[in-house]
């Protein structure tokens, strides 16, 4: 039902249309523009650009639920939900999760559609250090929405491989 590659291509096309609108839009945030203030590593920006294109993103509609303080970065519960009716004409096509300090910035990409009923997905991720996690949702109308969260990872005091 879902052709992942086609969905990705469609997303990229939609971004071009979206960015033209964004130039005059109000209340829109360019992720690429906001990130440098947070000193986000270049690798995450590159990965986001590769996944969703160079378009600015809007903040909102995406809820990223992740604990702000985790006891061990090896297993961090994460839930992402997108405000969408999930109908044939108006639904979430893909959700991407990125991080800025793991060896690889990409965490997971989820392809879904109207048959999901609701756009809410939970998983567990690894975070190598205290850092920002970013979720991006690509909608069927071509719009891109984002949310981010800062996570403080408690460094394990006694690690098994110390010797």
């Amino acid at each position, binding site marked *: 039902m879902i052709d992942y590659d086609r969905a990705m291509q469609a997303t990229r096309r939609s971004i071009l249309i979206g960015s033209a609108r964004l130039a005059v839009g109000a209340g829109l945030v360019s992720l690429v523009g906001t990130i440098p203030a947070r000193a986000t590593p270049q690798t995450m920006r590159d990965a986001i650009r590769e996944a969703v294109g160079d378009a600015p993103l809007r903040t909102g509609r995406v809820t990223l639920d992740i604990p702000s303080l985790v006891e061990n970065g090896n297993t961090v519960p994460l839930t992402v939900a997108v405000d969408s009716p999930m109908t044939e004409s108006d639904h979430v096509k893909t959700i991407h999760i990125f991080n800025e300090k793991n060896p690889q910035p990409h965490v997971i990409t989820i392809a879904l559609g109207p048959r999901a009923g609701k756009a809410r997905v939970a998983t567990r991720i690894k975070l190598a250090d205290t850092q920002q996690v970013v979720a991006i949702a690509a909608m069927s109308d071509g719009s891109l929405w984002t949310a981010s969260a800062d996570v403080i990872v*408690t460094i*394990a005091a006694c690690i098994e491989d110390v010797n």
Partner: protein
Amino acid sequence: MTAAFLRVAILPLVAGFASLALAADIPTAERRSGSEFMGPETRAMQDDDTTNPGMLWVLDGEAAWRRREGAADKSCADCHGYAQTSMNGVAARYPAFDAAKGRPVDLEERINMCRSEQQKATPLPFESQALLALTAYVGRQSRGQAIAVADDARTYPFIAAGREIFERRQGQLDLSCASCHDDNWGKKLAGAPVPQAHPTGYPTYRLEWQTLGSLQRRLRNCMIGMRAEPYAYGTAENVDLELYLMWRARGLAIETPAVRP
């Protein structure tokens, strides 16, 4: 300082459960499982069987329980029937004294004794997936039950020996288990709260390990952290420590398979 000195001084006099209890360090009302020191997300992961990763091992153990093994071609179920009834409360009583061996055995050793003697199969290695799975499955049948090491006079010397190890300073850092878990629980070691070291949920899924592990593995972790030479798996020292810790945790509920940071 005085309290620590007295504990050591009392040890040689310990003659029974009552005197062991007199020397208890954390009052009963203040005893708390490690799960009370962890964050809500980790607790939620533990408390829901559909999200608790330890349940993967429990399911494996359930299959192993029914599988015929060894020269005797017998399964655990052939002798014990339904684990839900026959194993109910068993893990809460271990380690327990074994008359033939003249010493306490932990649940892992008990399972391996069944394999050798009843199934005529080779014992499962410590920390093997198969042994963890069976232990987790048996342990799961006691979830919610109060830890109740038997009041068995034959175990008193072993409880006392475990306590002596618990309170002995060891390693390059010259710390004892008691330095942290009796005297400083609730405080922060770097960012992490120091729990009371009650083995309520073993085998436990530790996020740090990213897998299920035994109490002996956890004890070895702490020894390595103290820069001490850990006791080898299956040694009397480890079983004595397990027994002392279970005695010390009596009354707390079993949470197997627990999830811990």
